[in-house]
C-alpha cells in the first residue's frame, strides 16, 4: 500500500490536538465534538488496517521505513498480528473515553481533550514502531499527557499518584534505555553497522550472561508497566485518582504496553535469559494473581477494587505468556483485548455511578438496581465478562490461557484457576452489595437510569464482548501466523538465525563474533564491573 496509513492513524490524533489549540477556549462544545470526530476518524482509518491485514503473513505489514537521524535511527512503522489488535483496541476505546468524559469534565475542557488526543498518538506510536529509538520516544512521550490527565483532572491525592506513576515507570524505562544502548553497541561490534531495528536485534546471539543483564533491564521496565507483583503499587493509586476516562485508557491500553513489550522484546531477544528467569517470573505472576484477587476482596472503594482486579488479571496474562505455548500466548493476547474491554467497561460503569452519587465507597450503595434497571443489566454483563462467563469474551481468553499454562506446568495451571474463582467472588460480592438488596439510603432514589450518551458508549463494548465470546475466530485468525513465528524465534532461535543471516555479510563469522561477545576481551571495559 502506498498510502502511509500507519502514519496517518498514529499522527491524526496529534494533528487534532494541534487543531484544538487554535479553537477558542470558551467553545467547550466544539472542542468535544472535534475531539470525538477525530477519534472516530482514527478508528475508521484503523478499521482499514483490519480489512487489509493478511492473516497468513507473519511479517509486519503496512511497513513504512525512511531514514531519520542516521546511525540506525529510522522512522520504521509496521504492524503484525499482535500489534494490529492493540492498535484497534486503542482506537476503539478512545472515542468511548471521550464520550464518557462529555459531562464529567467541566473544567479546562480544551486542555483535557488535547492531552487525551496526544495520549492516543503516543500509545499508537508504541504499538506501531519497529525501530527501538522510535519505540522508546513514544513510550516515554506518552507519559507526559497521562501525567497531566491524572495530575490536573484527578481526585484529591492526584499529585502524589501522578508523580508515583511517572517516576516508577521512568525508573524502569531508563534502565531499559541503558539495555537498548548495550544492544546497539553489541550489534555494532558484531556487524560493524549501526542498527536499532527490532528485527535486526533478534538476529544477534549474545552470551547467556550478557542476555541476563539485558533481559533484566527490559523485563523490569515492562513488569512495572504491566504491572507485575511487586511493582504494582503505582496502579491502585493512579486508578483511584485518575478521571474515569483516564482510568479506562490506563487499564485498557496502557497496561497492555507492558505485556506487548514482553512479547515484542523481552521474549524473542533474550531466549536464554528467559529460560533462566522463567520459574521466577512465573511465580511472580502467580503471586500477582492471588494477591491482586485477595486485595480486591477487601477493598472498600469500587474503583480500587477494579484496580486490584487488574493486577490479578494481568498476572494471568503474564503467566500465559510465560507458558510459551501457542495456546498460552494467543490466549494472553486475546485476554489482553478482553481485559481492555471488560476492565475498561467496569471503570466506565463505576464512572456512571460516580456521576450520580459522587462517592465510590461500596457502603454508600445498596439496591441501586431497582432504581436503574438498564444500568444494572449492563453492569452485570461487564462484570460477568470480567469473571469469564461462557458466551462472553473473558471465557475464551481465560480458557486459552489456562490450556497453555496447563501444557507447561500442571501445578501452575491449577493454582492459576484461582483467578477465576477469586474474580467471581470479589466482583459478584461487590455487585450484590452495590446493586441488590434494599435501597440503602434516600439519595439513591434520586438516581436516574442511563442516558442515551451513556448507552451509546456502553453498547459497542457489550456487542464486542458477545462477539469475542461467541466467534473468537474473527480475532484469532489474524494473529496465528505472527504468534507462531514469535514462538519459533523463542524456541529455535539459532537455526533461524543461521538461515536468515542474509543481512550480515558473513553469517558464520557474525555468529562467532556474536557468541564471543561477553566471553572474551570483546566485552566493553565497563561491563565486567556490573556483574
Amino acid at each position, binding site marked *: 500500500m502506498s498510502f502511509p496509513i500507519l502514519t496517518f492513524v498514529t499522527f491524526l490524533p496529534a494533528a487534532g490536538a494541534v487543531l484544538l489549540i487554535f479553537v477558542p477556549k470558551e467553545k467547550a462544545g466544539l472542542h468535544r465534538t472535534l475531539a470525538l470526530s477525530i477519534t472516530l476518524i482514527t478508528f475508521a482509518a484503523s478499521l482499514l488496517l483490519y480489512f487489509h491485514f493478511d492473516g497468513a503473513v507473519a511479517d509486519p505489514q503496512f511497513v513504512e521505513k525512511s531514514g531519520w*537521524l*542516521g546511525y540506525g535511527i529510522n522512522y520504521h512503522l509496521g504492524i503484525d498480528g499482535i500489534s494490529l489488535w492493540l492498535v484497534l483496541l486503542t482506537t476503539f476505546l478512545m472515542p468511548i473515553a471521550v464520550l464518557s468524559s462529555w459531562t464529567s469534565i467541566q473544567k*479546562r475542557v480544551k*486542555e483535557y481533550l488535547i492531552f487525551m488526543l496526544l495520549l492516543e498518538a503516543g500509545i499508537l506510536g508504541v504499538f506501531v514502531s519497529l525501530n527501538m*529509538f522510535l519505540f*522508546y*520516544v*513514544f513510550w*516515554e*512521550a506518552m*507519559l*507526559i499527557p497521562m*501525567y*497531566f490527565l491524572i*495530575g*490536573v483532572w484527578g481526585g484529591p491525592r*492526584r*499529585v502524589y499518584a*501522578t*508523580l508515583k506513576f*511517572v*517516576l516508577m515507570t*521512568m*525508573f524502569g524505562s*531508563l*534502565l531499559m*534505555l*541503558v539495555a537498548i*544502548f*548495550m544492544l*546497539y*553497541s553489541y550489534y*555494532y561490534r558484531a556487524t560493524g553497522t549501526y542498527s536499532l531495528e527490532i528485527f535486526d536485534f533478534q538476529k544477534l546471539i549474545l552470551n547467556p550472561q550478557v542476555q541476563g543483564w539485558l533481559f533484566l533491564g527490559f523485563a523490569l521496565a515492562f513488569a512495572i508497566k504491566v504491572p507485575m507483583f511487586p511493582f504494582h503499587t503505582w496502579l491502585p493509586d493512579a486508578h483511584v485518582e485518575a478521571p474515569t476516562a483516564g482510568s479506562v485508557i490506563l487499564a485498557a491500553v496502557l497496561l497492555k504496553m507492558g505485556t506487548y513489550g514482553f512479547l515484542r522484546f523481552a521474549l524473542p531477544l533474550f531466549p536464554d535469559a528467559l529460560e533462566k528467569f522463567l520459574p521466577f517470573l512465573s511465580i511472580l505472576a502467580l503471586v500477582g494473581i492471588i494477591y491482586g484477587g485477595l486485595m480486591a476482596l477487601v477493598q472498600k472503594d469500587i474503583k480500587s477494587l477494579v484496580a486490584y482486579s487488574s493486577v490479578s488479571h494481568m498476572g494471568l496474562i503474564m503467566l500465559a505468556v510465560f507458558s510459551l505455548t501457542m495456546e498460552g500466548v494467543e490466549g494472553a493476547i486475546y485476554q489482553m483485548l478482553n481485559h481492555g474491554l471488560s476492565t475498561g467497561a467496569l471503570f466506565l460503569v463505576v464512572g456512571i455511578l460516580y456521576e450520580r452519587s459522587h462517592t465510590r465507597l461500596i457502603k454508600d450503595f445498596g439496591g441501586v438496581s431497582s432504581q436503574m434497571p438498564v444500568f444494572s443489566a449492563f453492569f452485570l454483563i461487564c462484570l460477568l465478562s470480567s469473571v469469564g462467563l461462557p458466551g462472553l469474551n473473558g471465557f475464551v481468553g481465560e480458557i486459552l490461557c489456562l490450556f497453555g499454562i496447563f501444557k507447561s506446568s500442571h501445578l501452575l495451571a491449577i493454582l492459576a484457576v484461582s483467578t477465576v474463582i477469586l474474580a467471581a467472588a470479589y466482583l459478584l460480592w461487590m455487585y450484590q452489595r452495590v446493586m441488590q438488596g434494599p435501597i440503602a439510603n434516600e439519595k439513591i432514589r434520586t438516581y436516574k437510569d442511563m442516558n442515551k450518551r451513556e448507552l451509546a458508549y456502553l453498547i459497542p463494548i457489550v456487542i464486542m464482548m458477545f462477539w469475542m465470546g461467541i466467534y473468537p475466530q474473527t480475532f484469532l485468525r489474524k494473529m496465528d501466523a505472527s504468534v507462531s513465528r514469535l514462538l519459533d524465534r523463542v524456541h529455535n532461535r539459532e537455526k533461524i538465525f543461521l538461515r536468515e543471516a542474509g543481512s550480515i555479510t558473513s553469517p558464520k563469522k557474525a555468529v562467532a563474533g556474536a557468541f564471543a561477545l561477553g566471553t572474551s576481551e570483546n566485552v*566493553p*571495559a*565497563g*561491563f565486567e*564491573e*556490573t556483574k
Partner: protein
Amino acid sequence: MNSFNALLPLLAVVAGALVILLLEVFIQKERRDYLGYASLVFLAAAAFLAVMSWGKEYSYFQRGLALDDLAVFLTLLFLLAVAFVILLSLKYIRQQDANHGEIFGLLLLALSGLMIMTSSSDLLVIFLGLEVLSVSSYALAGLRRKAEKSGEAALKYFLLGSFASAFLVLGLAFLFGAARSLAVPEIVAHFKAASGSPALGLAGLALVLVGFGFKIAVVPFHMWTPDVYEGAPTPVTAFFSIGPKAAGFVVLLRVFMNFWGAVSSGSALFWALWTISVLTMVVGNLVALRQTNIKRLLAYSSIAHAGYILVAILARDQAGLVFYLAAYLFMNVGAFAALIGLSKKGTEYLEIDDFAGIGFRYPWIGATLSVFLLSLAGFPPTAGFLAKFYVFSAAVRAGLVPLVVIGVLASLVSVFYYLRIIVAMYMRDPVREVDIEVENPALFLVLFLCLYGVLQLGIFPGNILVVIRQAVAALPIF
C-alpha cells in the same frame, strides 16, 4: 590558513563593545533600548563574518588563534545566546533597577572572552580569554547595585573566581615547566615521549582541571553557583548558565580529551574526571530536590547537566558534547526567559509557591516553560532527550556502563524536581497573588525561538547534526 580573517568576528564584537560603552554616555536613560538594538547589529555582523569563515580554517598569531569549524560553530552558538540575553534584558533592566547601560557592553566583552577561549589550542591564550570573560562576568553579576544579593553574588564570584584563576595559572606554570610550551599539541607530545617522571605535568594538568572545574561548575568546585545564579540579574544568570560553561567544556574537549588514550599516565586523569562526573550528577540532582527558589533550583540543575556533559568527554564523543551544548542553550535560556516573564516592576516571582496556578493563568509562559523543563528532564521528543541519548549511547559504546547507569538514575531524580515545578503550575491552586506585566514582545520572541529550537533539535535535528559532525571531524586527535 594564516589570515587576518581569523580575527574578524572577534573584532566585530570587541568594536561593538567599545562603541556601545561610548554611546551610552550620549544616550538618555529612557532610550537605552537602542543600545541593545545596536549591539544586536554588531552580533549579526559578527555572525555573518563567522559564517563566512566556515570551512576555511583561518588562523593568526602563529596559530595562537585558530578559527576552525568547531570554533565557528561555537561562536555562532554564543552569538545566539548573547542575542537572546540582550533581548531578555531590554525590559528587565528597567523593571529591576539595573538600567546602568553597561550591561550590553559588558555582555559583548564577555562574549569576546568566550570566543577567544573556544578558538585556541594554546593554554595561555585560553587563559587570556578566560580572564576577559571573568572580569566582565564579575561586573555583570553585581549589576543590580541596590540589591544585596547581587552584591553578594558579585563578591563571591570575584573571590572564588580569582582563586580558581590562581590555580589555573599555577597549573600553567607547572605544565610549562614540564613541556616547555603551552600549546596543547606540544604538551601531548611531551607526555607521549614521557622521558622522566610525568608527575610535574600531571600536577599541572590537575591544577588546570581545578581552574576549569570552577568555570563549568562541577562538584566539588560548584559552591559559588547557586549564590551567584540567585543574586545575578536573571538574564545574566541565563548567560552564566550557558556561556562560560560551554566555553569551559570546549577547552576540556580540546585539552583533556587528548590525554587518556595517548598517554599511559592519562588514566589517572580519566578516573579523576569519572569521579567528578559521578559526584556532579549525584550531588547536583540530590541537592536540587530541596530547593524552593527556582533560580537556585536551575543552578543545581545546571550543575547536574555539567555532569552529563562530562560523560560525553569521558566517552570521547565530541559531536555528542557539542550537540548537548546546543540543546542546553535552547532549553535553559528558554527556562530563564520564562522566569523573566514572571516579573513586574521591582518584583520577580521566583519561589515555587509563586508558580502555583500560573500555568492556566498565563498559558503561553506556562506551556513553554513546561516544554523546557520536560526537555531538561530528558523527555522525548525534545532536544534534551536526544542530547542525553547521544551522550549516553556513546558512553555505553565506550564501555562506561556503570557511569551510564548512575547517569540515568540521577536523571530520574531530576525528573522529580522538574515535574514539581509543573505540578505547581498546573496542579495547585494559587497561594498568593501573582500579577505580571505580560507586555514584552522581545521576551516572547525569545520564548518561541527557544521552543522552536528545542523541538527542532529534538525531532528533526538533521542538518544541525551534519554541521556538528563536520565541525568536530577536523579536530586533531592525538
